[in-house]
């Protein structure tokens, strides 16, 4: 069949008249069983390059994609065209995934999207033994390269699979962001006969701005002043999860319809926010850039970064989600160039810290290796055996698997890490090389902030895109520079905001009557942490009154006049009456009875000794009791503590009080930590 005949079918199935030449080149090769790497900008129409061939093959086309939201949207669109498409990912229930697998086995599915992590699912593995497979697609293929901007260890398995697939099975790898180095790395990894098709990456509808500021407050103020003047709906990316909360609250405080979206939300909430974004229910969604949203929304009108991403390639990828309809789109990057005492730019520090802290110390790797030489362990077992944080164990695990030192073996329902016979020594050199490469990328990102070139040109050159076009549309060419006007009125507004924005303690579970509580402040971002630290670890004085005041405001704002019966407090690990005295004062102000009957039945260690949640849970499990349980039946209880960290203690007490008949348990603390403050 020639192009014309295929275009007739294209019209019938997709309602599209023609392929672009570059699309047709790829499709032609795919139809004859070739392997293709396609590097094309977002909005080019990469998905048609596999969706069309998929409709022409007899069997199923499997698409490995890390973007769950994108899967959902594409599946919906395909099904509306009468093409049978499904997805398998963590968002669906096991039953839904199971149904999908059965349909695929029965030959009822043409296009199947699957998250790479599912490769470990037993039912999927079973199904792959019988499925009639016609084509494999690797979406976001840059994630298979450590030199890319979002390396995912689970994608390594997909590459191994592709290496093992028979020669004549068509394979398409796609990405919108790959430097020459990443391209070569992908080519090397996929191996075999692979043809690379590279298009130009210029996004001419982007209006690029960089706003240099000298404090965090200036970022907040610019947003409050300008956001509602921007067209349409957009995204704000912050550097940390806490900031998503702070920025969203600040914008709401200023009457801007904003919501925060982060990995801490459950799947339902995330779906709801994503739907809200699709329907333009919000002015903006504030999210961490670590979260690949992959929303299939063509008209995201602005993307604003409050922190610089790790490299120009990250940046290109993240802003790439905007303006896919080709209409004018505003892209803003903030950079706080205030210098600290060592002369380092404030906004350089966070991404630099991420790079430096990306890997645990070598001693911790050794600790993990020794533990695994002794016995095979689950991830959880390894955390317990080494007392390392989950994030650290995961990094170590991924590296050890990557270097072939350990393997993750499925043993019934548990996954065990096994040390491998003949494993090489840990290659530390590779880590150092990667670190240097990442620092270089970060410096190139700062280069983007300071460049006087057209900004799109700077990005394209970083991506080794050699297109010869005229670059315009940025504050280095034809657009005005943006500045911030921070006057007294706005400063007062910020003070007012800070006195009314309290961190939420997320502890609700189905099995317990505990509700989400509130803290007076974040531990690290105010003078509260210092005051607590002085009392607890230095002079032993009672907590100062301003903490009581702040905590009372937090409590009143959250729970209002909810009518409580009893104030309890978490008994201390060591002697000391700080929390007891604090709770007593608190109770007397709000005129609720204080009880001292919540006690420890065994010695525990201070929670901060433990680096991960499992050990923290073990430390406090069954550690508490209440002297007069009958008096708790049907009671509404306030539970006071000084610092909220993992929440393990509060949750444990919540469970205990629930079994004793408490109707509601509302935790209130002075401070909430932000991952690793203590």
């Amino acid at each position, binding site marked *: 069949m020639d192009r014309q005949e295929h275009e007739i079918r294209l019209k019938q199935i997709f309602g599209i008249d023609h392929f672009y030449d570059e699309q047709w080149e790829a499709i032609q090769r795919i139809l004859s069983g070739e392997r293709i790497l396609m590097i094309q900008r977002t909005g080019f129409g990469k998905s048609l390059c596999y969706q069309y061939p998929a409709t022409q093959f007899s069997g199923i086309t499997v698409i490995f994609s890390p973007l769950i939201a994108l899967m959902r949207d594409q599946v919906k669109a395909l099904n509306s065209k009468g093409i049978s498409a499904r997805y398998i990912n963590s968002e669906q229930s096991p039953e839904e995934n199971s149904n999908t697998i059965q349909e695929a086995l029965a030959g009822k599915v043409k296009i199947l999207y699957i998250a790479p992590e599912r490769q470990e699912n037993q039912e999927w593995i079973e199904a792959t033994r019988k499925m009639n497979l016609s084509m494999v697609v690797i979406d976001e293929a840059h994630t298979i390269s450590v030199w890319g901007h979002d390396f995912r260890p689970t994608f390594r398995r997909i590459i191994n699979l592709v290496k093992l697939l028979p020669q004549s099975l068509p394979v398409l790898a796609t990405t919108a962001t790959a430097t020459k180095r990443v391209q070569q790395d992908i080519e090397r990894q996929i191996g075999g006969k692979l043809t690379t098709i590279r298009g130009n990456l210029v996004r001419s509808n982007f209006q690029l701005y960089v706003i240099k500021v000298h404090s965090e407050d200036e970022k907040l103020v610019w947003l409050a002043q300008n956001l509602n003047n921007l067209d349409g709906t957009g995204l704000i990316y912050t550097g940390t999860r806490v900031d998503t909360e702070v920025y969203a609250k600040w914008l709401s405080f200023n009457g801007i319809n904003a919501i925060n979206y982060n990995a801490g939300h459950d799947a339902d909430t995330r779906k709801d926010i994503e739907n809200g974004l699709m329907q333009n229910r919000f002015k903006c969604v504030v999210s961490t850039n670590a979260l690949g949203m992959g929303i299939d929304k063509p008209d995201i009108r602005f993307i604003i970064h409050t922190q610089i991403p790790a490299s120009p390639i990250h940046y290109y990828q993240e802003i790439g989600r905007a303006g896919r309809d080709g209409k004018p789109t505003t892209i803003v990057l903030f950079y706080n160039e205030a210098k600290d005492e060592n002369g380092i730019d404030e906004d350089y520090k966070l991404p630099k810290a991420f790079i430096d802290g990306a890997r645990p110390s070598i001693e911790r790797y050794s600790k993990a290796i020794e533990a695994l030489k002794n016995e095979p362990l689950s991830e959880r077992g390894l955390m317990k055996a080494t007392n390392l944080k989950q994030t650290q164990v995961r990094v170590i695990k991924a590296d050890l698997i990557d270097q072939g030192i350990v393997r993750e073996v499925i043993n019934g329902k548990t996954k065990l890490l096994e040390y491998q*016979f003949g494993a090489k020594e840990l290659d530390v050199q590779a880590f150092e090389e990667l670190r240097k490469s990442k620092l270089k990328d970060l410096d190139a990102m700062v280069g983007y902030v300071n460049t006087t070139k057209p900004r799109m040109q700077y990005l394209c050159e970083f991506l080794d895109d050699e297109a010869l076009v005229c670059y315009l549309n940025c504050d280095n060419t034809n657009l005005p520079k943006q500045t911030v006007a921070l006057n007294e009125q706005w400063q007062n507004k910020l003070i007012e905001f800070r006195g009314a924005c309290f961190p939420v303690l997320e502890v609700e579970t189905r099995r317990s009557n505990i509700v989400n509580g509130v803290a007076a402040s974040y531990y690290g971002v105010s003078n509260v942490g210092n005051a607590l630290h002085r009392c607890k670890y230095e002079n032993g004085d009672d907590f100062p009154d301003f903490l009581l005041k702040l905590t009372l405001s937090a409590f009143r704002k959250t729970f209002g006049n909810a009518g409580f019966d009893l104030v309890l407090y978490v008994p201390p690990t060591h002697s000391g009456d700080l929390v007891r005295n604090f709770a007593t004062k608190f109770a007397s102000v709000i005129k609720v009875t204080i009880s001292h009957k919540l006690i420890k039945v065994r010695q525990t260690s201070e929670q901060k000794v433990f680096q991960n949640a499992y050990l923290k849970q073990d430390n406090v499990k069954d550690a508490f009791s209440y002297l007069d349980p009958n008096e708790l039946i049907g009671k509404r209880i306030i539970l006071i503590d000084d610092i909220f960290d993992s929440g393990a203690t509060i949750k444990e007490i919540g469970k205990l009080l629930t079994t004793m008949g408490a109707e509601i348990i509302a935790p209130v603390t002075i401070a909430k930590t932000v991952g690793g403050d203590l």
Partner: protein
Amino acid sequence: MINQELTYWVALVHTPKIWTSRKNEMIAHCFRRGKTIADFFESDSFLGMEMNPQEYDLLLQTKSELPNYAFMVEKLLNQGYDIVPITSNEYSPTLKANLKYNSPIVLYTKGNKQILQEKSIAIVGSRNANETSLLFTDNVAKKASSEFKVVVSGFAKGVDKQALDSALNYKGQSIIVLPQGITTFASGMKKYYKQIIEGDVLVLSTFHPKSPWSVELAMARNSIIYGLASEIYVAQSDDKGGTWSGVCDGLKKGRMIYVRKPSDKEKCANNILIGMGANPVDVEGFPIHKTVDYEVSEGLWAVVAEAPASYGNVEGETGTSQSAQLSLPL
């Protein structure tokens, strides 16, 4: 190492209804033409190999299932199992020399594959072996370990288990030949975890990785145990069952087999095997002077000849140096 050919190898192995010997002929066909197994499947005519229509259809079916085998191989490799095809120089030369065209097409292994290249002995015998047999097993394993010979055993109760534990106890090396698929041995993998990662144990299976234990596989496995060893020591055999048929088969093929000379009071078939030509050894495993009643053994040969062979019937496989060389390309 990820090698695309592994997919084709595994696909060939698990193609049903074609004998191993016939599959080895296909491999030899590729080899003689300087082609790979991938070329064989990717060529329209299977490289012009002569075959009957049924074989052709079966191979065509396998070809359509190649993507499925790719998934299977990826999973095995990801879990740290090795797949050693018969043409690999990691494949056991002893096994190839002993079984020739009946050699398994691939070995699924976990652990130190170098063990496959070492000199080896097998110690075989009943699941319900007596004290003397177990002592004999311990002695032979000790001797083998001191001579740096690998002890091959089948992970059954009795003699097998004793052989393994003794070899490890004397700091020797051991091959566990599984009567099941390699992924269904979780408890054993856990038990011998340290020995596996330290390189003293190689776990090996020639069956579909997911096959559960079965009597049929246990019987079929015996030929692999005998094939992996240069010398075979029999601790205790009944006059039927796996040990018996394995030894009879080995004798027929001219293998070097040592059988423990039992005491007069013992109820076992060891003496009959000695009568059939096996070499008698004492409880320490040392040879003892042999007096053979040839008439008895001649008579028994007839019985053995009638017994169903546990594997293949390829002509011209009498262990001559010529056929041994023929199998080398494999």
